[in-house]
């Protein structure tokens, strides 16, 4: 078997059949694991990102230094473990939460664990973009720390958060492909199973092309949405 005859008419026919029969389900698996993992990662990462900003010594609600140090080290630790290794490392956790460590649903656990520290850092950077004078203004109005977070910081950084969440969702989709190596489903698994294990390069390329298209669509939508939501530079 070699690369040269990977695209003969019958191979292409086989790939076409695969596209019709298996791609829709693989795409569905990729999308739902991506979306659910992103959702859970935001659920955990957003509050952590807020705490990273508000809890520091000069923040609006300083927390004890050891708490902040622990949080920072914890996030950096998780961020520095390569995803494919993290996935294997947390198999016991996955079993506890989902009941099994194999399958698309199970892959959502390591995806979430890998993505929430990333999201926390993205949220942190979005919130740091806010003009500190605005925060001071809110304090001068008698706002509580929680009011500053929910009525000033988060609403003011919506465009930046949308941009960063778009970045996160495309990155997490990249991770789902990797989870195909350890029992996860989706386009990544399809590409690996057909392309790597069975030398069906046409299927592999097709899967990659579909992934590229989905990424493009998500990215374009995210960029458009962020621009639409940003009231700073419009209708001047």
């Amino acid at each position, binding site marked *: 078997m070699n690369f040269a005859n990977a695209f003969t008419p019958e191979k292409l026919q086989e790939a076409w059949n695969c596209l019709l029969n298996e791609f829709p389900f693989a795409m569905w698996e990729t999308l739902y694991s991506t979306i659910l993992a992103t959702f859970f990662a935001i659920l955990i990462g957003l509050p952590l990102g807020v705490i990273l900003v508000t809890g520091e010594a000069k923040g609006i609600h300083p927390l004890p230094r050891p708490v902040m140090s622990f949080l920072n080290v914890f996030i950096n630790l998780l961020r520095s473990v390569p995803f494919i290794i993290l996935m294997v490392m947390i198999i016991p956790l996955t079993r506890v939460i989902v009941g099994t460590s194999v399958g698309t649903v199970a892959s959502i656990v390591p995806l979430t664990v890998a993505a929430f520290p990333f999201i926390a850092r993205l949220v942190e950077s979005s919130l740091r973009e806010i*003009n500190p*004078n*605005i925060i*001071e*203004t*809110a*304090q*001068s*109005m*008698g*706002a*509580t720390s929680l*009011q500053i977070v929910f*009525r*000033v910081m988060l*609403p*003011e950084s*919506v*465009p930046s958060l949308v941009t960063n969440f778009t970045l996160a969702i495309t990155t997490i989709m990249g991770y789902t492909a990797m989870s195909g190596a350890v029992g996860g489903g989706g386009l990544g698994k399809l590409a690996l199973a057909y392309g790597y294990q069975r030398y069906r390069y046409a299927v592999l390329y097709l899967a990659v092309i579909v992934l590229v298209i989905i990424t493009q669509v998500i990215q374009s939508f995210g960029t458009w949405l962020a621009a639409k*939501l*940003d*009231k*700073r*530079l*419009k*209708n*001047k």
Partner: protein
Amino acid sequence: MIELRNLSKTFTTMDGQVDALRNINLTVENGDIYGIIGMSGAGKSTLVRCINMLERPTQGSVLVNGRDMASMSQRELRGMRRKITMIFQGFNLLMQRTCLRNVMLPLRLSGVDRRTAEAKAQELLTLVGLPDKANSYPAQLSGGQQQRVAIARALATEPDVLLCDEATSALDPKTTHAILELIRDINEKLRITVIVITHQMSVVQEICNRVAILENGEVVEEGMVSEVFSNPRANATRNLIYPESTGNDSVFPKGGQRIRVIFNGAIASREPLLAKMAVDCGILASILGASTRSVGDRAYGYMLLGIPGTPEDMAKAISYLSATPDVTVQVEAEYAAKEVEA
């Protein structure tokens, strides 16, 4: 009434301790438009932030109607901040909210329901002259308009005191004038005490009744604006009022002496003072520098005169000019000596 008693603020930085404010004592009466003026770095912004405890004073106290701000609980302090509101040099509007929702914010923060807040905000936008900008975003407005929205926002919680931190420094002279007029209107109609932080003497002159001059964290002079203007005692004050006076040494005529003629509300149009002095005393004074401003038909400011001739001529000129109502005369040499001391 706001009283600052022995107020000091020390910042600890990497390079050691910095005394931003040293032993400040000030009293702002209800209804005042009180100016606090100083060069950048004099501590003005720190001072104004100590009033609403955005900066905690290191020592001393801030008494608002006799109550010590520093000893209040967080909750009480938040309540006080709704009564001592603030506008800023950079306007600091929320860019992702419409003007209406910006003005609504302090009301919503204090628990007012949406409908009531909306009505109140619309009313305030009308008061500041922007009734049609309710649904515009701040980015669509000019600087002057943004400051008007910020003023409406500051008035939302019906404060007793408005703190203006360099509120007109980012605006052009014409817009500055309009905003100052609005602030004066608010002071008069809503009986709100105003504290104005600025580095521009023209701002103090235009709206303040009292002024404190801040230099290196200390109040070097304090009083009624008209008095401080007409007879500035501290160097810092004279530098702010007569920024150009230092450059006059080069035109100092040889063999002559300099006197500073200070107009403290003298009626400017009454008679040609120098021409009359030339006729009556035969002293031909030359004007070396002048900075006068008219308020109504009265002149405030100074004129720097070179008096040629003998010390007797000098004495004659001084007594002649001093005889004019609302004019005082100082021998300029004294100033020079003081400046060397400082």
